[in-house]
């Protein structure tokens, strides 16, 4: 049977990917796919790909059904089209959604294309030999220069014996096209490069759920992107108000404290974590810090000291995203800018609202570090 349904499926998926790409900005900003995350994939709701036709609208349409019920009783739920007789108005509208599974790596790739992100260059010597091709497999097609002599003749011999064309008295083995075997290569997985992402977030009283949602959305995309750059990336989470502690991912997004804002506390915990667990020589370290920037006045000096002496030297990249709270942004970002100027390892971004996520991600990951 000429059933190349896979080809049609591929085309369908390709078109679906195209739709996602077109709407990627919306998906980046709205974070709706985070709740639909599986282990390696997310499922994205998309409007059904529909071929438009001249068809009847809902207005004034109806159908014939069967069963009990009084006049005025609802048939099915609102929005549901009763299948009816397949007639007027019962054709499904264009409001239907389909769920499309997209693998996280693929999503990261789309993100990279959309934001024109440079690929990360891992630091350290381990990265130099990445992606080396090794000739360690065999295929049925290939250039003659790579023909695997022994295997080809072995195949030919097998064929001749099984078809009765091999004469022990006249042991000639003539390979035909289908016998030929060629050496081929596999990309040897790049040597493991260790990477850790450390998220730091201000959970003090002035940070509301809206801001945390923004952080969450942004972190999702950062994870997706860095996860594609490094296999098996580690993630750590630190929350702080006036004091800081390391927590798990769930706690990270679901904690609200009433303490004051002392950013230095988080920097201190972060520095300790790096010292104890992620030696700089072995790890690519990424720090992403989010706060509304309302640091309590006298804390800036201590924070800058830690940043300058401990964190910036250790990290590939230190990103600070200042998420605007209902009270506006504090002046931490300005103070950082004044103190550190154009530091190559430091990326500063102000995120006014959900729409700001897009540019913020672009700024952070656009550094290519």
């Amino acid at each position, binding site marked *: 049977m000429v059933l190349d349904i896979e080809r049609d499926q591929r085309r369908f998926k390709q078109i679906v990917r195209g739709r996602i790409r077109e709407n990627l900005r919306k998906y980046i900003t709205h974070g709706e796919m985070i709740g639909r995350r599986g282990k390696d994939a997310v499922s994205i709701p998309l409007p059904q790909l529909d071929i438009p036709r001249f068809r009847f609208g809902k207005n004034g349409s109806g159908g014939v059904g069967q069963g009990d019920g009084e006049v005025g009783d609802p048939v099915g739920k609102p929005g549901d089209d009763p299948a009816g007789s397949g007639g007027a108005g019962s054709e499904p509208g264009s409001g239907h959604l389909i769920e499309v599974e997209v693998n996280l790596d693929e999503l990261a790739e789309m993100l990279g294309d959309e934001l024109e992100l440079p690929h990360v260059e891992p630091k350290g010597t381990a990265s130099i030999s990445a992606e080396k091709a090794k000739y360690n497999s065999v295929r049925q097609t290939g250039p003659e220069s790579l023909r695997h002599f022994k295997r080809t003749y072995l195949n030919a011999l097998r064929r001749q014996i099984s078809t009765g064309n091999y004469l022990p008295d006249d042991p000639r083995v003539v390979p035909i096209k289908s016998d030929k075997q060629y050496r081929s290569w596999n990309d040897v997985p790049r040597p493991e490069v260790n990477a850790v992402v450390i998220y730091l977030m201000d959970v003090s*009283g002035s940070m509301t759920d809206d801001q945390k949602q923004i952080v969450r959305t942004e972190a999702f995309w950062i994870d997706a992107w860095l996860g594609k750059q490094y296999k098996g990336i580690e993630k750590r989470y630190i929350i702080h108000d006036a004091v800081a502690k390391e927590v798990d991912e769930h706690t990270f997004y679901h904690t609200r404290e009433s303490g004051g804002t002392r950013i230095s506390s988080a920097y201190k915990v972060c520095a300790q974590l790096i010292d104890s667990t992620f030696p700089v020589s072995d790890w690519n370290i990424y720090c992403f810090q989010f706060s509304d920037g309302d640091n309590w006045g*006298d804390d800036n000096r201590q924070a800058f000291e830690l940043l300058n002496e401990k964190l910036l030297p250790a990290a590939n990249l230190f990103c600070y995203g200042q998420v605007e709270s209902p009270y506006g942004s504090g002046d931490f970002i*300005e103070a950082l800018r004044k103190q550190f100027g154009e530091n190559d390892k430091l990326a500063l971004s102000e995120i006014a609202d959900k729409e700001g996520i897009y540019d913020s991600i672009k700024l952070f990951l656009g550094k290519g570090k």
Partner: protein
Amino acid sequence: MKLRDEFLRELQAIVGQTNRRVTVADGPRILRCEVDQGTALAAAVYEFILESKELAQVDTAILQQSSQSLCNRVNYLLEPISPIETDIDGCVVQMRSNPPQQNESGKYYYELFLRRGGSIALYRYEKQPGAIRSRVPVTLTHEVLGRLCEDFNATIEEILAS
């Protein structure tokens, strides 16, 4: 009440003037008010602080408690105020308009601090879209300023009593 009466008298004295500091004292309690512009009925105030050494040794828990009752008292600023953050190390409670007031030109809110040491302070902030937030003068009637004076004073009494 001596502090309030003196303060109101001082306000009358700077009617028509700009950029003045008004300071009055009653024993350890010192009221400092930075006035951007004074008029017969009201004053545009940049900073309003009642300081007192009596708060030198207060416990944070007591500050938190008193900040709540201060917020309840100060209910005439047309914006509900509530404690937002407490810094235990610095022993300070921060209170703000909650939620902040919002109109087309931006967001506005009051910020109050109750500090060990100590002081009670009031400021006004403005945040325009796309701009950094800034401290702005707020125009309050002499009557409201008088009440603030009374209520800050009452809060200190409350702290000392507990």
